[in-house]
């Protein structure tokens, strides 16, 4: 009996595997550095907040003013300012946008943040916590910036860019870096990285695949549309998950499009102000 070595085969989907290795490794290092930044940032923020609290408390004592029990005329508007601002950043996106009906993006700590801020304004304790000290009526009255949004709130971003461009959106860095077509399926390689959290939140952001859509010659296609002829993807973008600062969701999202349908845009849209479109034909 004479044996023969089986014929050699080409490695299946070699390009995908290479991209997968690069993606997973960069994601891991991003998580690591992100975690470091998160902790350092947290320590710095805590130090600054404590300093502000101590200074604010020291100012109160010599003047003899009890800003905790300040007159309603001066305390209502300022105290309502920050509280409503925070609440609008956490709760309203879920209510005000159509996309929010499906789990697009939200603060997992949203309701807690809103209630925490409201109770602090209504009845500030004698020994303010660092967060509460920033939001006391005393300070807002002094600065006159009661309605100023918290420093970490971000402006909405609406833009159109070529494929491959990284976009800084509110709280997130977004990239659509590649496309692939196989039969009726059009897949997009995307990355969503959490750059910061909603004010007062510490529990991360929920990132969802449903924030991504395609514009085609036959209309808009959702990532949630069923795919009749599935294809293998090396790294699928997660359906949904909670991500902290520095963490990224990355991978391919398959869309069901007709074979004769042209794709004109890849869009990320969430309820926190991101409306970003990549042109896949540039």
């Amino acid at each position: 009996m004479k044996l023969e070595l089986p014929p050699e085969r080409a490695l299946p989907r070699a390009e995908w595997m290479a991209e997968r290795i690069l993606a997973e490794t960069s994601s891991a290092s991003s998580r690591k550095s992100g975690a470091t930044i998160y902790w350092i940032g947290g320590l710095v923020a805590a130090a600054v907040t404590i300093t502000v609290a101590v200074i604010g408390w020291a100012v109160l004592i010599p003047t003899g003013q009890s800003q905790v029990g300040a007159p309603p005329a001066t305390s209502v508007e300022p105290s309502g300012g920050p509280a409503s601002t925070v609440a609008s950043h956490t709760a309203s996106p879920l209510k005000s946008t159509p996309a929010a009906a499906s789990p697009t993006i939200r603060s997992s700590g949203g309701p807690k943040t809103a209630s925490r801020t409201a109770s602090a304004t209504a009845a500030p304790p004698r020994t303010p916590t660092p967060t509460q000290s920033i939001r006391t009526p005393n300070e807002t009255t002094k600065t006159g910036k009661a309605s100023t949004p918290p420093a970490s709130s971000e402006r909405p971003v609406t833009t159109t860019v070529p494929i491959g461009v990284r976009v800084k959106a509110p709280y997130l860095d977004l990239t659509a870096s590649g496309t692939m077509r196989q039969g009726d399926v059009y897949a997009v390689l995307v990355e969503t990285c959490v750059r910061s959290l909603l004010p007062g939140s510490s529990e991360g952001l929920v990132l969802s695949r449903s924030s991504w859509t395609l514009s085609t010659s036959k209309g808009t296609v959702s990532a949630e549309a069923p795919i009749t002829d599935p294809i293998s993807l090396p790294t699928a973008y997660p359906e949904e998950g909670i991500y902290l600062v520095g963490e990224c969701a990355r991978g391919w999202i398959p869309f069901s499009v007709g074979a004769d349908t042209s794709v004109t845009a890849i869009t990320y849209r969430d309820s926190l102000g991101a409306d970003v479109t990549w042109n896949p034909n540039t």
Partner: protein
Amino acid sequence: MSVGTAGGGESDAELWHRLRSADEDAFRELFMRHSTPVYNFCFRRTASWSVAEDATQATFTTLWRRAVRGEVEALKLDSARPALLRMARNECSNANRSRDRHLTLVDRVRTEQRPPADNTASWVEAESTMAVIRQALAALPANQRDVVELVAWSGLSLADAAAALKISVGTVKSRLSRARARLARTELAALLEESR
């Protein structure tokens, strides 16, 4: 061997040099150039396409992680293949050890990743044949098997195989000679003579 400059682009040495600075393009090019030989080398060591695919990915993942950490050693030869096959050898051994424990997972991955149009029967037949060859090859000591796999089956030169195994060329030559002598009257004899 001409793998050092396969594709007509940069040489392996140039790409490897860039890889040491974590250059993604260099990694991609090296991957496209050598992943299939690594894959087939792993298949011949494991007799499983899916385990070979996992081991190939593990090999290049290890390489890229080292590159990111700045831990890739300088290339001493013109070709990167000996260094990659040496890494693959370790990954294949790991994959073989864990294969039984992860059999269920491997089967699932294989089912998911196999291209739908592929001929499943030929995959299974190749694995069966390779398993028989592995069984026959088990008559050799491990160090002689290594030489057979690198020189006779993967086409490395004696010098490249020596570099991959970190032994002298003379040792490679003597091990290959002993392996051939030992298997001369078996069904594997032809497989040791061919240059692949």
